[in-house]
């Protein structure tokens, strides 16, 4: 088996050279399929990362009414501090709020703030809470006098977590879908290769070759096609993700996005392993077809 490994590789290559169009076509489709899977995966990765980022700042933001007085603010601060689960309180005045907003969002602050769901023209309390009490604190704070509204970062988090789960599930299904299509593509090309060699395989058998002798080159070919597709998709995502994510970041500057290269690097191994695995499965499928 192993003494012939070089020969099997040579045969795989030789066969590929004999039908370059078919091989290139399947390589391109495998690469595109995997790249598609990579995009879905990247989305999942990104949101997951976002959740991790936001998770660190479990906080309730308590916005104050516009006409609130300094005295009311002091009373409110006391009441908030007395709530169970509150760990820290920071008052941000209207001016400071505006300043902060401009710092984070740049010149589009007003529109973007609306998009992000809060009003930049109100002063607010940033209330640090223990994660498990965030919701209770938010609910109680809402009913305190002088409070205009409450934004609980946990709600956003929960929504993001749900989105992340959906995306990761989607990525999994995409991967399965891509894998099946890949397997069909590869098994098809391997099957054609085996058919074209029927006469040769009969000769191998007459010389006493085992069933794997004729099939090994095609197993290699299918696996290498998958592997090459995975690596190409990886390279392309290394190329495209930074581009795409810098665009995204330009459009949504307040999103703490993970750098594209990092995402590509995280998704890369999945692509390569998937390519190799389904390539092998595809060629095994073809060979079991051929043997019956």
């Amino acid at each position: 088996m192993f003494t012939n490994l070089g020969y099997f590789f040579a045969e795989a290559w030789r066969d590929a050279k004999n039908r370059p169009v078919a091989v290139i076509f399947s390589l391109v489709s495998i690469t595109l399929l995997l790249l598609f899977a990579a995009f879905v995966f990247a989305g999942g990765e990104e949101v997951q990362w976002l959740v991790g980022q936001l998770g660190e700042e479990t906080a309730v933001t308590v916005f104050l009414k516009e006409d609130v007085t300094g005295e009311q603010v002091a009373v409110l601060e006391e009441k908030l501090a007395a709530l169970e689960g509150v760990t820290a309180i920071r008052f941000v005045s209207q001016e400071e709020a505006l300043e902060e907003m401009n710092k984070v969002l740049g010149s589009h602050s007003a529109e973007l703030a609306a998009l992000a769901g809060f009003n930049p023209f109100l002063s607010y309390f940033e209330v640090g809470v223990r994660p498990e009490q965030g919701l209770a604190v938010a609910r109680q704070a809402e009913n305190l006098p002088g409070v205009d509204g409450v934004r609980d970062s946990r709600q956003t988090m929960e929504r993001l977590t749900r989105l992340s789960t959906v995306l990761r599930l989607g990525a999994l299904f995409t991967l399965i879908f891509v894998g099946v299509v890949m397997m069909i593509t590869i098994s098809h090309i391997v099957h054609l290769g085996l058919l074209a060699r029927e006469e040769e395989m009969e000769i191998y058998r007459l010389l006493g070759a085992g069933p794997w002798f004729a099939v090994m080159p095609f197993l290699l070919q299918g696996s290498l096609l998958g592997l090459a597709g995975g690596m190409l998709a990886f390279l392309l995502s290394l190329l495209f993700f930074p581009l795409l994510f810098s665009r995204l970041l330009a459009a949504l500057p307040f999103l703490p996005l993970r750098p594209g290269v990092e995402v590509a690097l995280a998704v890369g191994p999945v692509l390569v392993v998937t390519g190799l695995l389904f390539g092998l499965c595809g060629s095994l499928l073809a060979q079991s077809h051929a043997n019956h």
Partner: protein
Amino acid sequence: MIHARGVAKVYENGTQALQEIDLQVAAGELVYVVGASGAGKTTLLKLLLGMEKPTAGELEVAGISLGKAQAEDIRRLRRLTGAVFQDFKLIPGRTALENVALSLRVLGVPWSENRQRSLAVLEEVGLADRVGSMVQTLSWGERQRVALARAVVREPRLLLADEPTGNLDATSVGFVAAVLARAGEKGITRVVATHDTRLLEMLPGRVLLLEGGRLHQVAGAGRKDRQ
């Protein structure tokens, strides 16, 4: 090496190709099977290589019973056999060397040793200057000798040759006779289907006549040819 008792072969279409074949071939022996076209020579060799199953009788080759042989048994038989087919069964698009080397590749012989042995055998059959030629560009007689080289390069225990000199001139018949003789020196049992009297004269052996699917002993009865 070969034990046949009452072996018969009826093809699916009803053709009775062989009947009541009794045959004993000792290890190292040289046996010629002669007979008119359609007498059943190729069929007999096919049975010996497990390409066809006998429809009656008992047939044992190298200790493997071919009536009830599993795929694995037949593979084992073929690995210790070298065969020259009437239609050569060479792989087109490959060189003479690649075709010969395939024989040892199947057996897992490393390439360096394989190459060396394959080149030596090709030289033995007079094709030293053709090793790199694609087999489909070779003449019929050259292809025949490539096929013989592929069969003997593995130094099998049993050599089956179906008309190995059918397309050859006197010189080339000499090459084949020499190869068969050398195989005998190595103790290889040889069954050769032929009507070539030149070969029979150059390298005497036991001659069996197939006539309408029945086997008759003609010459060299019981003699064990070991040259």
